[in-house]
């Protein structure tokens, strides 16, 4: 019997442990992790693939982390079922159950597998989600010559860029009519597309992948509606989603992810959820699934406090994304397509801020992303910016307007 069982070993789990232990040093804590390796950051995986970040840099805590925090670490143990009081795990082929008093689900998300013929079981087809995915790509990239990346979200772009830098011939395929469809309006996406093409990535938009063709079990080509592209390495980057199958029958309310309130509590007493798996109230109060690192850390911290008996609320998760496209920074926040757009164009920079009912609803930045965090803060606070007009998109405007208003100049007491 463990007082607290944590399922998952990503940033949400680690933030929860650190916060929980700062408040509770007595409870017995067990952590169950599907992967064998200790906690690592997935965010620099593309840099690891291209060789600019060394493997040991991915591990953000010392090897003694689990011992230091009094956590029993069950590596290579996959949670396969849950009911009141018992977590069923599978480890090295053996299935057993662990009794729990409190439980945190922090299992993150898995790479989506689109229904493409020949995708399953073909060697040379990878996601870029876990360390083992990255290691598979690295091993094959040493003899592969032609890569196809399916999906042009930020992970697809990072994969394409890393493989290009390794000297492979890279084709990026997107089903919609633009790259970065979640982050950018179509005209701004054109700038990103040109940047990719200028750096040798072939970009095919409005292209539907029909099948992965193989030879002796290994990928040979990718078949589209419009033709066939030879490939000996394929990266699937069509988004991530939580895997909730093992929670069937647990009674935990789910939608796209596990539904939690602002304290990260699920519908079942004694069970909390945090990170990519959790669908929590966002800045606008709506329950949203927003799989980012900052959200995972902040949700994990809140869960840690809640599980230690503290009373705390998350201020709302954010949609914030940033990616570098061959050195060019591209960032966005909020939801696009909803409001009146204000633009700024400068040397090597394009900035767009959408205003709806006097308030910021979305920001898109290329080349100059400075101050974007301040504009995001103004969106969260609902600051009325209507009188600023197009100025809102200028670099340097954000920080000043997110500050408290100073007193009027002239005579005043201190």
């Amino acid at each position, binding site marked *: 019997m463990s007082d607290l069982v944590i399922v998952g070993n990503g940033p949400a789990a680690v933030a929860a442990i650190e916060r929980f232990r700062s408040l509770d040093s007595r409870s017995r804590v067990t952590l169950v992790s599907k992967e064998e390796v200790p906690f690592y950051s997935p965010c*620099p995986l593309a840099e690891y693939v291209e060789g600019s970040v060394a493997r040991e840099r991915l591990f*953000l805590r010392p090897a003694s982390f689990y011992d230091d925090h009094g956590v029993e670490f069950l590596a290579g143990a996959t949670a396969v079922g849950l009911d009141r009081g018992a977590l069923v795990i599978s480890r090295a082929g053996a299935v057993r159950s662990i009794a729990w008093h409190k439980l945190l689900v922090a299992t993150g998300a898995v790479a989506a597998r689109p229904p493409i013929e020949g995708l399953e079981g073909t060697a040379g087809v990878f996601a870029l989600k876990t360390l083992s995915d990255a290691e598979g790509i690295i091993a094959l990239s040493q003899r592969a010559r032609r890569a196809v990346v399916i999906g042009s979200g930020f992970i697809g772009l990072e994969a394409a860029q890393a493989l290009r830098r390794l000297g492979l011939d890279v084709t990026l395929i997107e089903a919609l009519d633009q790259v970065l469809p979640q982050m950018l309006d179509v005209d701004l996406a054109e700038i990103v597309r040109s940047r990719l093409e200028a750096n040798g990535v072939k970009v095919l938009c409005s292209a539907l992948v029909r099948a992965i063709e193989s030879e002796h079990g290994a990928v040979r080509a990718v078949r589209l509606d419009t033709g066939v592209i030879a490939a000996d390495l394929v990266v699937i980057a069509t988004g991530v989603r939580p895997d909730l199958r093992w929670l069937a029958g647990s009674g935990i309310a789910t939608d796209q992810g596990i539904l939690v309130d602002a304290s990260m509590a699920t519908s079942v007493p004694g069970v909390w959820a945090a990170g990519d798996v959790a669908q929590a109230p966002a800045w606008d109060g709506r329950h949203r699934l927003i799989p980012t690192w*900052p959200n995972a850390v*902040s949700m994990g911290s809140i869960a840690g406090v809640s599980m230690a008996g503290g009373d705390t609320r998350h201020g709302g998760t954010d949609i914030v994304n*940033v990616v570098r496209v061959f050195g060019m920074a591209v*960032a966005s926040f909020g939801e696009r397509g909803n409001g009146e757009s204000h633009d700024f164009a400068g040397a090597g920079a394009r900035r767009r801020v959408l205003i709806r009912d006097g308030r910021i609803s979305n920001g898109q930045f290329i080349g100059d992303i400075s101050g*974007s965090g*301040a504009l*995001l803060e103004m969106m969260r606070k609902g600051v009325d910016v209507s009188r600023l007009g197009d100025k809102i998109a200028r670099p340097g405007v954000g920080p000043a307007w997110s500050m408290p208003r100073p007193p009027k100049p002239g005579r005043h007491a201190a």
Partner: protein
Amino acid sequence: MQKAIFTLMERCVACKSCEIACAVAHSKSGKVATAQFEEPLPRSRVRITSAGAYSFASRCVHCEEAACIAACPTGAMHREGRTGVVAVDEDLCIGCWMCVVTCPFGAVTADPGTAKALKCDLCAARGAAGLGPACVDACPTGAMVYATPDELAGMRRFATAMASVGVVDGVEESVALWRNLKGGRSI
């Protein structure tokens, strides 16, 4: 208690002396005459921004609950144990810019030259030599004050007292007077 930089917005005349001083303080040579020819060009970590009739030097306020630290996926953005300063470990930084897009004060710059996050470090190097932040010392109007919250409160009380007996007029003059009494520029 730790010292912080406090801003008296009403004093700022947007002369950008702080920006220059910051870039020079973080340059290789540390001298204005040579810093401007360095490659890469030293960059300032404070930026004069304006809000209507006001301007002020916007920079990191070294938050207690720092959004940039929570957002950093490499451990590069961290809090210095001894000083409480929020700083970037350039060896760990991969230039992913998560800190830039999450800092509510717009205080982190994405430096395209080095591809490393750039922010105020409260002049760690000068601090080691017993000096205060370069921007504070360079400000000709005293728009920034480097003090602990207690010192600032004391200064405010002093200012109110001075103003009430008519010795000086308002906060700006009293800060200047307080400084002169303390005999130094960075308090």
